[in-house]
């Protein structure tokens, strides 16, 4: 192990790398061309699917002279409806990023012990991975390999590893993001909220946002719906320590003391029950556990809740009663990134319970149960490897393996290899030192990415993927309220001078090296065409239209419709059978969280509309308007501390961790005096990201205290506190 530890140093650009990289030509970065036309006209327009975030809108790529010069929202795609968020337009900044990974890299150690990346052919790189995993499989260690992924392109690797017998998968989108919400709604309603969220925001008349900053959190369709609701006069209640853009649209902004949201939610549950404002008919017919719930929230009086949250009794009562008044036309938004304080499942449970009491289930303006896919079939069958071992999470109600649990188990030596697709775990999981310690304990790390993200610097093998604008992926056919199937296809061929490949080709090379069934990865165009033929279409047709949409006539429930829920009791569980059976509270109880140490402010974080956290912070096109994050600090607090607007400071957290780079202060009225706010995803530490390197500060780096949800392993990231150094 020590040999490995010393071996795996973080590789920046070594001179060896620089020397050899000169072989590969410069990436033709598309900056402004002085002689270009004012407004070019496209030679061709290629409909495809966006990958700047994970929402997957339909985009039209406008191509002239072999270059994508513009991306616009597909008119018929139900997620874009002709519009795009800022990032969607910014895909050109990814495609023509001069820092893109150029060719496979293999870590080599010289005789004198110096480590460096050497450029490798695909044959060499694939052979090395194939051999390593064959050896591990032969030694009965296939269960010591973990496949990490984030994003749609991972589908080919899911199939590859299922066929080969690598069964451990982890996704940061679970325990670091939506996982607690999905488990909580599953426990309550029997199904997850889903992504895109099954919410009828556009028709809501009363929308309560718990920390959700729609408009800055810029999922295209969600924001379209939100603006539609605002425009129709929907009353917004924004619960947030920060005066978000959503709060500026709100009837009431409730600047809650961070970490106390669950107390406030319990108070509203109590009001709905005690004041008999819940939907009696719906609850009687469809819910169980009302009396347990009533008893379970008895202590959540408005007065007690004021003492915890800082929200006035008047506001607590007014919103609780308005929720009852609006009933099924009110919606308490379940949020999206919910791994905050370690009570995330129970907080999400409280949100689920509130919605149940409102009776908004499958009603206009309420929760939607998305069940229908467009339903493209596949004539291709493949055999999963039988009998492999699958890691079982130590968290009793986790349906996936939390990524941080993999980190813990790797440090203990229980996992020996990671295969990482499109997720920069070093900037994602919190507690960076822990992540790096785990990575150093690995025997073998493979990373597939488009850019030299930090994690690639620790890899044994780096495989460069082409961007979404240069490749096919599998068809996007997932449940949505308007079921659709959409195509991702290359707008342009892979850029010249880059030895990068699409994911499906990389998976195929590994499948060939492992001599798996050749039918596993037929030629991609043939594969897509044969799949589309199952719904009477073809690749030719789809390559022109991009998307096909159906309507789901059963979105709203019909009067008198009998409902059945996929919970242990078949009812909506106000008190959860599964939680009780696992030894947890059936009804959410509030427990307090760490308070600010003297002189420290709680670090909260969120998103800017221009960026998808660290994935886009090297994007020069997007970076022109937002190239670094700012630390939001209450103006009066800053004056008390002697801090000046726009000055650059280092951050130091409660465990003594100092930030690698400085951040600019934004003195503002728009935040509570006891908290500071950062946009997540800046402060990259890999100098190969030439644009993003040390611009702004990394929130992830300051998150060393992870408060883990004992129910399903959600890693709460908002129990960290910072002070400043010049």
């Amino acid at each position, binding site marked *: 192990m020590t040999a490995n530890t010393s071996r795996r140093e973080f590789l920046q650009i070594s001179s060896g790398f620089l020397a050899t990289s000169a072989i590969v030509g410069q990436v033709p970065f598309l*900056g*402004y*061309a*002085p002689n*270009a*036309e*004012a*407004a*070019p006209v496209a030679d061709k327009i290629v409909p495809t699917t966006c990958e700047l975030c994970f929402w997957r809108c339909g985009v039209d790529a406008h191509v002239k002279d072999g270059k994508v*010069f*513009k*991306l*616009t*929202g597909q008119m018929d795609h139900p997620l874009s409806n*002709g*519009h*795009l*968020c*800022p990032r*969607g*337009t*910014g895909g*050109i900044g990814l495609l023509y990023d001069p820092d893109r990974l150029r060719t496979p890299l293999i870590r080599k150690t010289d005789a004198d012990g110096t480590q460096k990346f050497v450029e490798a052919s695909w044959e060499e790189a694939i052979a090395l991975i194939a051999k390593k995993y064959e050896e591990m499989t032969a030694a009965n260690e296939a269960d010591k390999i973990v496949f990490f992924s984030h994003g749609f392109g991972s589908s080919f690797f899911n199939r590859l590893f299922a066929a080969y017998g690598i069964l451990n998968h982890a996704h940061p989108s679970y325990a670091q993001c939506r996982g607690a919400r999905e488990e909580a709604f599953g426990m309550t309603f029997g199904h997850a909220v889903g992504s895109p969220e099954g919410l009828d925001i556009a028709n809501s008349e009363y929308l309560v946002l718990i920390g959700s900053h*729609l*408009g*800055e959190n*810029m999922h*295209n369709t969600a*924001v*379209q719906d*939100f*603006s*539609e609701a*605002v*425009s129709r006069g929907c009353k917004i209640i924004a619960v947030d320590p920060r*005066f978000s*853009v*959503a*709060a*500026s*649209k709100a009837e009431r*902004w409730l*600047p809650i003391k961070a970490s106390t949201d669950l107390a406030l939610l319990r108070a509203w549950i109590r009001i709905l029950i005690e004041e008999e404002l819940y939907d009696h008919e719906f609850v009687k017919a469809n819910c169980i556990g009302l009396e347990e719930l009533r008893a379970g929230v008895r202590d959540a009086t408005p007065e007690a809740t004021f003492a915890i949250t800082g929200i006035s009794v008047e506001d607590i009562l007014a919103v609780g009663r308005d929720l009852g008044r609006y009933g099924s036309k009110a919606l308490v938004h379940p949020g999206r990134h919910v791994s905050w304080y370690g009570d995330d499942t129970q907080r999400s449970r409280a949100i689920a319970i509130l919605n149940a009491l409102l009776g908004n289930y499958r009603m206009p303006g309420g929760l939607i149960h998305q069940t229908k896919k467009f339903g493209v079939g596949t004539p291709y069958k493949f055999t999963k490897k039988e009998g492999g071992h699958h890691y079982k999470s130590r968290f009793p109600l986790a349906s996936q393996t939390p990524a941080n649990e993999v980190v813990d188990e790797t440090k203990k030596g229980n996992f020996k290899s990671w295969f990482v697709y499109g997720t920069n775990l070093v900037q994602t999981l919190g507690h960076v030192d822990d992540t790096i310690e785990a990575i150093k304990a690995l025997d073998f790390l493979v990373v597939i990415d488009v850019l030299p993200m930090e994690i690639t610097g620790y890899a044994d093998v780096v495989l460069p993927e082409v961007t979404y604008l240069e490749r096919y992926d599998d068809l996007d056919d997932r449940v949505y309220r308007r079921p659709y199937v959409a195509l991702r296809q290359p707008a342009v061929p892979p850029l010249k001078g880059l030895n990068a490949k699409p994911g499906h080709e990389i998976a195929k090379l590994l499948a060939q090296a492992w001599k798996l069934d050749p039918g596993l990865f037929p030629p991609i165009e043939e594969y897509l065409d044969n799949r589309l033929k199952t719904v009477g279409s073809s690749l030719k047709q789809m390559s022109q239209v991009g998307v096909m949409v159906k309507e789901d006539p059963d979105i709203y429930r019909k009067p008198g419709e009998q409902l059945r829920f996929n919970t242990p009791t078949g009812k909506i569980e106000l008190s959860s059978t599964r939680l009780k059976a696992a030894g947890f509270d059936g009804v959410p109880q509030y427990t307090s969280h760490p308070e600010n140490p003297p002189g420290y402010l709680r670090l909260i974080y969120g998103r800017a*509309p*221009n960026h998808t956290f660290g994935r886009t912070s090297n994007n020069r*096109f*997007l970076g*022109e*308007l937002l190239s670094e994050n700012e630390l939001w600090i*209450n*103006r*009066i607090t800053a004056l008390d501390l002697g801090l000046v607007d726009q000055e650059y400071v280092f951050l130091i957290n409660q465990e003594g961790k100092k930030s690698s780079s400085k951040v600019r202060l934004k003195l*503002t*009225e*728009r*935040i*509570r*005096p006891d908290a500071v706010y950062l946009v997540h995803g800046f402060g990259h530490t890999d100098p190969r990201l030439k644009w993003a390197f040390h611009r702004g500060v990394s929130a992830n780096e300051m998150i060393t205290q992870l408060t883990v949800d004992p129910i399903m392993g959600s890693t709460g990231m908002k129990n960290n506190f910072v002070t400043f150094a010049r």
Partner: protein
Amino acid sequence: MSRERKYAMIIDTQRCVGCSACVYACKSENNVPEGFCRDWVVSITEGRYPNLTLTNRSERCQHCEDAPCVSNCPTAASHYAGDGTVQIDRDLCTGCKACIAACPYDARYIHPGGFADKCSFCNHRIQAGMTSTACTQVCPTGTLNLVDLNSNDGKAEALLKGRQVKQDKTHAGTKPKLFWLV
């Protein structure tokens, strides 16, 4: 002979979330050089914690009816296009900056190509028969609306109905044609 058009923009600040999608879309549509923009978002916070208001406002050339950039242009490069828009003939422009000094809205910049540049209401799109600009098309919140004030399609009336309308720097007397709904 068709009637004369009079393009204007109606901008609903209630819908706007200040995301800047309009700025990015304009930049790629119009090949705007790095470091410059033809439209931008102004974000104004007023009040003291916790009693605050925030307004986000997408801004650009106002396509004034009485445009000082046109009257101050010594070469007639800046001109009225006859559809209610103000345009710049790049071949006539010498880059003298008289228009920049004259514009009350700071809507113009000198393009590295040596001429003044600004929002054109995407006149290349209008001429191609489209009814949207790049910014009105991309906007995910439905904030931005290109309207023809001489049209009888009812679009402008429907947007303005019952709403308080604000215009910027009307005291400059330029008859601007950006209307913000507040």
